[in-house]
């Protein structure tokens, strides 16, 4: 083999080798790389018990209950399969609304309610002007217009 060819093979082998090693490492860390659990995963008991974790889902329309005169709020998060109730006391992000993707950080209490210490809004990959969003809502007959 010419030295140049040898170096080419070496470089390709470095990339492939490091790629495979990284692939295995990421597979092993899969669980830790998940930023949040879905309500279904929570119902199946996947998150570690007694520890803080994140749950993410869509806010069920009509489930938001605000306490009069306080910051306390409770709402349901759903992945259209299972629902988990979240209780939170604090300021909600601008994008928080019914039907919006939300990630809450906290832990489960004894009554099956998720007590959140932090609530973040997850925006989606759709970008459109309000008129288009309205038109889409009318077509789909959604009751939760933006």
């Amino acid at each position, binding site marked *: 083999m010419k030295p*140049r060819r040898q*170096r*080419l093979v070496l*470089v390709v082998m*470095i*990339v492939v080798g*490091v*790629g495979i090693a*990284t692939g295995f490492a*990421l597979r092993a860390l*899969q669980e830790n*790389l*998940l*930023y*949040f*659990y*879905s309500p279904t995963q929570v119902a199946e008991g996947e998150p570690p018990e007694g520890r803080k974790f994140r749950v*993410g889902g869509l806010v069920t329309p009509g489930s938001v209950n605000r306490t009069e005169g306080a910051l306390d709020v409770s709402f349901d998060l759903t992945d259209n399969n299972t629902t988990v109730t979240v209780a939170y006391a604090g300021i*909600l*992000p*601008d*994008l928080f609304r019914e039907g919006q993707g939300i*990630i809450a950080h906290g832990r489960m209490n004894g009554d099956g309610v998720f007590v959140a210490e*932090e*609530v*973040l*809004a*997850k*925006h*989606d*990959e*759709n*970008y*459109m*002007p*309000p*008129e*288009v*969003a*309205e038109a889409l809502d009318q077509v789909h007959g959604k009751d939760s217009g*933006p």
Partner: protein
Amino acid sequence: MWKAFVRWFHRMASPPHFYAAASRWTPWFFWSAIIVIAICAYGGLVLAPADYQQGDGFRIIYAHVPSAWMSLFVYVNMAIAAAIGLIWRIKLAHAVAASCAPIGASFTFLALATGSIWGKPMWGTWWVWDARLTSELILLFLYIGYMALRSAMEEPSRADRASAVLAIVGVVNVPIIHYSVVWWNTLHQGPTVSKIGEPSITWAMLWPMLGMMVGFMLFFGAILLTRVRGEVLARERNSKWIKEVAVS
């Protein structure tokens, strides 16, 4: 066709020839970048409608998305140049790789900073350790590590080879960054443009963003050529052709 390309490539690999060609091309890249970026800034900041959810806040994508995209593009460029330099022992390729690093690091920083500024009002936080943000931060560290490694070595040829290996190893991070939002649950949104099927963004919002990407690429071309010229001057400072260039 291929033969002509190979001949052109070999000619470009000669420093005096490259130096002269780069001097001619730089203003073309620079001015076309300015024009394209100006047009697309107008398209994105004035002509494009406000978003249904984020209002005018979404307009930061016209800086954020092209810089994030460039941070990956520049890295791949750097790794390929480093590999060419390593395999074919072309010094100019190493000079290109070395010149890519600070530009790429700047784009990465810009992507992280604009994302953070936007994240505070929209998500409710400056920073989270989700897969996309973390892997992009690792990219910034790769760039910085590459530059640190180069500057730690006195001898250019040794610095070239050592840093080339680092650049090539780091290239595995590029697909991880790109697919992080698909493989794992992240706070960062999923792909808008590159997903299968129609891009889920209105054309009036999309074209300035795609144009911005072209503008950023041209800008990168202008800066890269300028930096490589500087790099070539420093490396060849004792050669005869440099003296001829300096005198003329």
